[in-house]
């Protein structure tokens, strides 16, 4: 999967799982800018699963962040790229 394709997929999932209508950009911070909380993260994981066709857990991505402000759309796309299996 190409990086741009992956980013589009992540943006779609973030948009779909947000509590309010948003237009996510790569630099947006999920907690600070887009209003995500721990409950909303579960919805995001399901939306990503629907895109990828495999169950997703986001706790590694969250735990690896130096701060909550580091949880951006871009960092999520990077995390997903690192965890993609060959051929997907």
């Amino acid at each position, binding site marked *: 999967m190409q990086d741009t394709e992956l980013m589009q997929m992540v943006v779609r999932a973030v948009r779909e799982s947000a509590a309010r209508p948003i237009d996510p950009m790569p630099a947006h911070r999920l907690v600070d800018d887009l209003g995500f909380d721990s409950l*909303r993260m579960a919805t995001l994981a399901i939306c990503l699963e629907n895109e990828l066709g495999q*169950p*997703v*857990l986001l*706790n590694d991505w969250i735990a690896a962040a130096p*701060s909550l402000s580091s949880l951006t759309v871009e960092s999520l796309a990077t995390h997903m790229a690192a965890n993609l*299996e060959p051929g997907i």
Partner: protein
Amino acid sequence: MPFQVEERAEVLWLTLDTPGASVNIFNRATAAQTVQLMRSVDPRRVRAVVIRTAKPASFINGAGVLLVTYVKTSAEVEMESLPYRRAYAAVRDCPVPTVAAIEGNCWGCGLEFALQCDHRIASDSYATQFRMTELSDYVEVPLLGSTRYLPGAVGLRRAIDLLLWGERWGAAQALREGLVQEVAPHAGFAPALDAFVRRVLRGEVPSQKRTKLPAEAGTAEALARARARIETIPPLYQRTFTDTLDLLELTSRGEVGEEHERQALLATTASTTHPSAKAAYGMFHVRQTAATLAAWRASAPEHGIALGGTGPAAVRLFEELRARQPLPEVRILAERGGPGPGTTVLVDPGQARAPEDVEVTPALAPPTPGQATVCWPLEGRPFLELHAPRSTRSELARALQRAGFEVALSGGYTYGSHQMLGALLAPAVTAILAGETPHTVDRTLRELGMFRRMPELIGALGIRAAAELASRALGAEEPLPPPRAAMALALLAQPADYRQGREAPELLEELLLWLLMGALESDFSHPSSVDVAARELLDFPVARLSLCAYLTPPRVRAALNGAPRRVPAPIRARALSYAWALRKVYR
């Protein structure tokens, strides 16, 4: 803003309504507004502050577990917790009496918040539950006042039960234990609260705010008993439990000042920065995923849903739902024949169809093909399996969730719960039949991280049901007549002492292979449902994240190498293909 503010008749009414969330979360914005509101209280104008909820099922559920996931140092814990500690202190230092009007879940930091108030009144509904989730769900030492103020409210012994051993109290019990001063029926809560506040204004209700313990005999014995019990729990939990108990002991000696605060901060840092707490957060996420899927995946039906069933399992579930009234979604409109065979409970029954719409099946029966069914595999535990081949039961799942159940979805020909229970019972039975002692099984389960072990599980299931499930799990490959399984289970049902058992790493590996088989082959619709079932039915430890996440390919390969030869060939083959495919369950 999280709080709606209204000043009326010399009382400041603060109504918490966390925006965009189904439950109230005491997040940073709430903390900041709390400080600002408490600072604005002018005793010349306001004679009391009431804190209540706009969400009837949630007073305060938590403080936002995202915080826990990334704090890594003592300085970070201190810095990140500071806004919360300031907010709680501001409530405690409020110049006029404060009243916590508790409707719905009062969990963890919600209970700690209520402890800062002078007065507590609770609504008598099932949704009103008092529970300290920090140790049981997150393996962390609570920081916001429970170790300091809970013993003063309910005594040291009961504080230990709430904090360490995860007791859940309803409103009536909270009243009996002295945690709240008054309980009012859910339907009449608003006028009861008004009357209570008037009595507070007249000075007729003493403040509950105290740090000194009430006179209580046997404090030393209670502490000693708790320390002995901590020895029996899995080692990976022991430090957090011991640190919490140490803080309670400080309180019991009247040391609730700066030294207590310093030690609490150190203990919380040690626990929240430990991998166990990080893993436990992951389990929170898994639970949320399972809950969201159960309520969300299916499309809403065009009509109401009727939940029907006959026999003891159905009747007990209906009794349970009846006890959980009044929840608007779970209304009992009609009962045919009263408690007993033929009882019918209607859920959201505006336009309910036939009562056999969803059926509660007897304890060991399989689901009916083509029919939506509900299985309550371990009565007393808040876990229900909804077998929904047509995927049109979202309203029922939501209603059961609101009634406090964790709902897992499944399909296929059997219940995933029965498969998971069998996957734990079968290797324990074969180990006993191979000459192992129950003490060794107990020691192995303790090593794996299980709090509740065989005697409790078999006691909850009954030996006959446990034998049936173990025999089914062993299946045609390794046929085991239920009476023979029952003999082994009778031994396992006796109290066991892990100290008398031998260290048996091969038995641990054997258990993991069986659990992997249960996870991979079960009829649950999603791995998060497998994980919630493993947690709620088998007590798989939150400190290992979740069963599916724990069983990585390298761990399974190690288990294949270490397990005894008696592990059935199909289980080995399945584990082998999983381990070498190098594909984790979760991405």
